[in-house]
């Protein structure tokens, strides 16, 4: 009897089947419609992760927390606001013997900052990104004593854009934020 009730012999759908197929069709339309509506909103853009240099405290966690080894974070030098100091605190450690550019006098653990003479008394500092590990030790020195022209940025040619950024979880200053993918860098000089 139960079988007959569920599946009439004349080929028509049973009540239960009708309900299920109705719900299924409704589900397909609701799901696709809702998603299209969410994805096609004109006032919003898809996002990537970036470090806000105004909030960054150069704690050093960028180098260790990223899922990539070495981290997708690199030091970026904004030359426009650099003081071109002869005695750069992003470059030199505090207690050096003299101003020689020897490794033991340099802050950068990988020697990624290249110091080159421009004219008296100015020196240009360039970050060799292939050596940089994003530890932020130079950024810390520049923030404390200089202009803050050395900043940490997530480099998007490396970043895999995790759904939840591991650095964002660990960042004590909540400085890792979602930014529009169209303008994926937060530089101090960029307005």
């Amino acid at each position, binding site marked *: 009897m139960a079988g007959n009730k569920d599946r009439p012999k004349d080929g028509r759908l049973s009540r239960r089947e009708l309900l299920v197929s109705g719900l299924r069709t409704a589900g397909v339309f609701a799901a696709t419609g809702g998603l299209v509506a969410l994805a096609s909103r004109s006032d919003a853009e898809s996002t990537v992760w970036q470090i806000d240099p105004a909030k960054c405290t150069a704690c050093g966690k960028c180098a260790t927390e990223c899922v990539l080894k070495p981290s997708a974070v690199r030091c970026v030098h904004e030359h426009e606001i650099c003081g071109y100091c002869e005695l750069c605190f992003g470059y030199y450690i505090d207690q050096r013997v003299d101003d020689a550019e020897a490794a033991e006098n340099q802050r950068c653990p990988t020697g990624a900052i290249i110091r080159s003479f421009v004219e008296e008394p100015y020196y240009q500092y360039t970050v060799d990104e292939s050596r940089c590990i994003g530890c932020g030790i130079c950024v810390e020195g520049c923030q404390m004593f200089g202009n803050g022209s050395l900043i940490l940025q997530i480099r998007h040619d490396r970043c895999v854009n995790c759904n939840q950024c591991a650095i964002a979880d660990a960042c004590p200053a909540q400085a890792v934020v979602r930014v529009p993918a169209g303008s994926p860098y937060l530089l*101090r000089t960029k307005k």
Partner: protein
Amino acid sequence: MRQATGRAGLLRRSLPGGAAAALVLVAAAAFAAENFPPPEFSRPYQFPAPTTPSPRAMAFAYVDMAVLLVALCLAAYLALRTRSRQGLVGLALFSLFYFGFYRQGCICSVGAIQNVALAAANGQYALPLVAGVFFILPLLFALFFGRVFCASVCPLGVVQEIVMLRPVKVRPWLDSALGLVPYVYLGVGVLFAAIGSRFVICEADPFIVFYRRGGPMWVVLFGVGMLVLSTFVGRPYCRYLCPYGALLRLVAPLSQWRLRITPGECINCHLCADACPYGAIKAPNLESTAAQKAESRRRLRWLLVGLPFMVGFGAWALHAAAPTLAGVHPTVQLAVRVWQEERGLVQGKTDESEAFDRLGIPAAELHRQALDIHGQFSRWSWVLGAWLGLAFGIRMISLSVLRHRREYQIDMAACVACGRCYSACPVGREQAPSEDLSESGIG
């Protein structure tokens, strides 16, 4: 910590004590200001501009979406058409290496729930196409073919499937009770994504630590625990935690084409139910007496009457728990810490409170933000609680309703289409009766 000691060490050596303290204050005040004017070069000088390479992750998105679609089609074909357990395991291995080890478990459908929630709650955040596709495709496939995504596409599912050695049967009452946890997790995950813009489901993903070969210690321990558990309990994450599984459970019973255990006529031998590690095969029950039917109807009536009360109780209970939930939000935690430090209730500084001090934002502003977040949690907890009450009620109803089965049948909500029952069934294809298969088993 490194900053504090390093800075103090420098100043103590270069300056007398009092001056050092003064300079720390000056340095802190002048944080990120232009201490040195830009140079005026005598010769023409071009400032090197920072390079800004464009995001590369976008390119992967299209490949990922295509692979997902192909893998889902293949899984549906293998599960429903060729009924090949070997094929499903092969596809699972591919998914383990592609979505798991190669793409490092990101993006996945489980986490994509949060992108959808965030996009729905926040007008400034557009749902990335890849997240939308990963969220919707497995659900659409479940509407037509059942949970074939779980079978051999999901990187979280396949790792548990592969390490399973000797699954034990979980007792039905325990299975049902633990089966409610995914609804709680789904609700909490959506709540956090929508309010805190914090993706807790991603943070607590136990298997991602294997794909990335590293992670926070508690996640590593959780992951190892889950993996060990998976060797003797069938897919513990999928059944008792996975929030996406909770959604698939709701959708899969509507599926159009269903898996069939036997290619021929069921001889009610129970071998398939023994082979299923997920308790997804229901035994036949033909002999239900009139008394049982009456009892079932009475239970259903009571549960339907009780459903609004369960919804109400859920809403009330979650509202009561809202302050605790809000306490997980980093801004609220920071506000509490700063408040405690101001009153001298705690000694020392955390990395977070130190960073907050350096930003120079007034504490009142932080407290305002924290209160705002608190309020949002408080408001949304009603909705979350009502949802949990509803999920609980519906589960109770589905458990209490008496259904007739003439043979062993798959519970589409629980079945993850692993294909073990195919090989366990002693009825061969050659024994298939000549009449239309689809008519024999539905009752």
